């Protein structure tokens, strides 16, 4: 959930600086002020300022929760804020915690409008005629606006229906994680490196595809995606040849390599932030589709394509690993790099191919995720822990482990929302990760020898 803050030097620099686009020292610069550049606003209507929750002193905002009680938060409800004379300030959607907020230019009177179409099935405004509210905003404290909602009875989904829908969502999400995680697992398997920057490869692919699709040449998403995957593969190759291979030749220790990937992740993430900006954008195609009802499950044609496409890609990868010469060489190098060298396999070349393929798959995962959710500069780093979970659950070092682990993580995450608040769903996946590490660290498909 990307949030954006403008902060003054009085706030904690580190956590904020590390994450937020605005920087810390603006307010103290010899009396100068932060010029308040916060990116574009309302260009094609597809951008939306990301909601904020807590605010620094001196900034005015309007916020709210859905439902007002805070119990069973509803995500994705859209609110629009206008000045008293009807000029639009901005709009926002509720996040996983049901919270939305819009920063306003200053204290004063504003109008807030809710879009009832964005309420989920089975929930409606208690007073359907009242879709607008007036509010006065004071400096430094967010003004809260609440709209009462209630169940309209009837269509409450049964447990089985919810299970089916969540399973479908879980499969979709899990396949995306699986795809992105295969590279992570294979890179570890062949070189022993835990690539903390893998999340940034995911983001990079999604962002490049966005530039090709919604900006620049404005290609259709398939073409934009394809080219983005190629470019990211090239980036992977560059990283391996330019950074990691020379370091391995210098016999730099694995821990140091790990820290290097952490530095690289920081670097790439913020470089993407500079280049792409702090706002969420969507791709130009495949938005706003109506859902098909397939039995208890409703799914958009786009998501169905994503599921089928991912399955095809993963099966293709598996086939390559099982049947082709280079695929077997990859498995051999993952198994035993020294013996591979002793068998005549050029291990360095295999590692290069692994990086290209792994980076390309990460990019593909990013593009699919961007199509489902939206593209923002932290999407990959948010996914990183889940990818770690997938890879470790499935067995670090094997591609099949990443696939199995990814599906499990996706399913656990989505199905858990039946019982717990959506804001905790990732916690379940992480808890599963910790449990796996304690009980069976080699994962489902891994081998015991790798652990000690």
């Amino acid at each position, binding site marked *: 959930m990307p949030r954006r803050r403008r902060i003054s030097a009085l706030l904690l620099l580190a956590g904020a600086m590390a994450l937020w686009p605005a920087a810390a020292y603006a307010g103290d610069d010899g009396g100068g002020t932060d010029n308040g550049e916060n990116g574009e606003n309302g260009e094609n209507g597809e951008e939306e300022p990301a909601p904020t929750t807590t605010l620094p002193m001196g900034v005015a905002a309007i916020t709210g929760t859905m439902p007002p009680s805070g119990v069973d938060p509803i995500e994705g409800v859209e609110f629009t804020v206008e000045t008293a004379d009807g000029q639009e300030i901005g709009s926002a959607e509720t996040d996983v915690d049901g919270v939305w907020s819009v920063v306003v230019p200053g204290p004063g009177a504003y109008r807030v409008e809710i879009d009832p179409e964005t309420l989920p099935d089975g929930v409606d405004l208690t007073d359907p005629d009242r879709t607008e509210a007036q509010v006065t905003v004071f400096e430094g404290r967010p003004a809260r606006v609440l709209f009462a909602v209630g169940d309209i009875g009837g269509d409450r989904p049964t447990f089985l229906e919810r299970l089916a829908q969540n399973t479908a969502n879980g499969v979709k999400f899990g396949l995306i994680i699986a795809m992105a995680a295969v590279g992570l697992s294979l890179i570890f398997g062949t070189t022993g490196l835990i690539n903390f920057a893998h999340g940034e490869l995911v983001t990079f692919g999604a962002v490049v595809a966005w530039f090709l699709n919604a900006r620049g040449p404005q290609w259709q998403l398939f073409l934009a995606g394809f080219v983005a995957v190629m470019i990211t593969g090239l980036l992977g190759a560059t990283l391996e040849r330019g950074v990691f291979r020379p370091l391995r030749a210098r016999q730099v220790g694995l821990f140091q390599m790990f820290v290097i990937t952490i530095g690289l992740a920081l670097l790439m993430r913020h470089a993407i932030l500079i280049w792409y900006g702090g706002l969420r954008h969507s791709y130009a195609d495949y938005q706003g589709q109506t859902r098909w009802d397939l039995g208890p499950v409703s799914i958009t044609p786009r998501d169905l394509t994503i599921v089928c496409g991912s399955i095809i890609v993963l099966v293709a990868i598996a086939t390559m690993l099982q049947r082709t010469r280079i695929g077997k060489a990859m498995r051999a190098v993952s198994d035993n790099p020294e013996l591979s060298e*002793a068998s005549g396999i050029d291990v360095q070349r295999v590692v290069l191919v692994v990086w290209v393929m792994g980076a390309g798959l990460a990019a593909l995962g990013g593009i699919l995720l961007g199509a489902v959710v939206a593209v923002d500069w932290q999407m990959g780093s948010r996914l990183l822990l889940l990818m770690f979970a997938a890879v470790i659950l499935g067995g670090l070092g094997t591609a099949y482990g990443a696939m199995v682990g990814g599906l499990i993580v996706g399913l656990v995450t989505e199905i858990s929302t039946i019982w717990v608040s959506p804001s905790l769903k990732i916690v379940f996946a992480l808890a599963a990760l910790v449990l796996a590490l304690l009980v069976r660290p080699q994962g489902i498909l891994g081998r015991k020898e790798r652990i000690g």
Partner: protein
Amino acid sequence: MSTEATGNGALLAASNLVAGYVPGVDILRGCNLELHRGEIVGVIGPNGAGKSTLVKAIFGQVEVRSGAVTFEGDDITSASPHQLVARGMGYVPQVANVFPTLSVTENLEMGLYLQPKAFDRRMADIRPLFPRLSERLKQRAGSLSGGERQMLAMARALMMEPSVLLLDEPSAGLSPAFQDQVFERVHEINDAGVSIVMVEQNARRCLQIADRAYVLDQGGNAYSGAGSELLHDPKVVELYLGTLARAK
């Protein structure tokens, strides 16, 4: 083929090798070895003498800090292992000598990675030497018994029809019955024309089948000579074959 460095037609020669794993620590301190065509050369000595390091240095898996290695007259001191495989050298490490998650067939395919088209022909040649493997072609190598794994390890190295085979303690950890089989295979492979360097812990059996042998100590050559001579040399027996005296 020979050059002045290998004088008397040695197929493989290592001279004054200094090598080690960790920077600053030398395991080999000036070690020599010669292998002539058709020979079995044994390398024995106490633990830590540098036996495994010697073959790894020859094969390019350990950095050679000074000294030279030649093969068929060409200097291969800095050649990498996969280049040497292409030139006709094979190596069977002591541990981790198979690909555990790959099947037996796939292990052998990896052995012939550089010439995949010759697979069927080579399989036909290899199968008679390793009959038990032929029954287990689809089995994952990790689930084979210790002895079967050793056989697979050797078979893998032979797929490329090497002219030289480097074996690192092939009988380690095997039951006596399997050890017999291993040494029989070594003999058969040698009869088929492969020259062999064999590092061994089991000095007696090694010297029994070796034409010549080197006894290493603390990274250097201590004794060398014909296998049968060393077998009965009291110095060798006393210092390094304590078990021999007790066993027989």
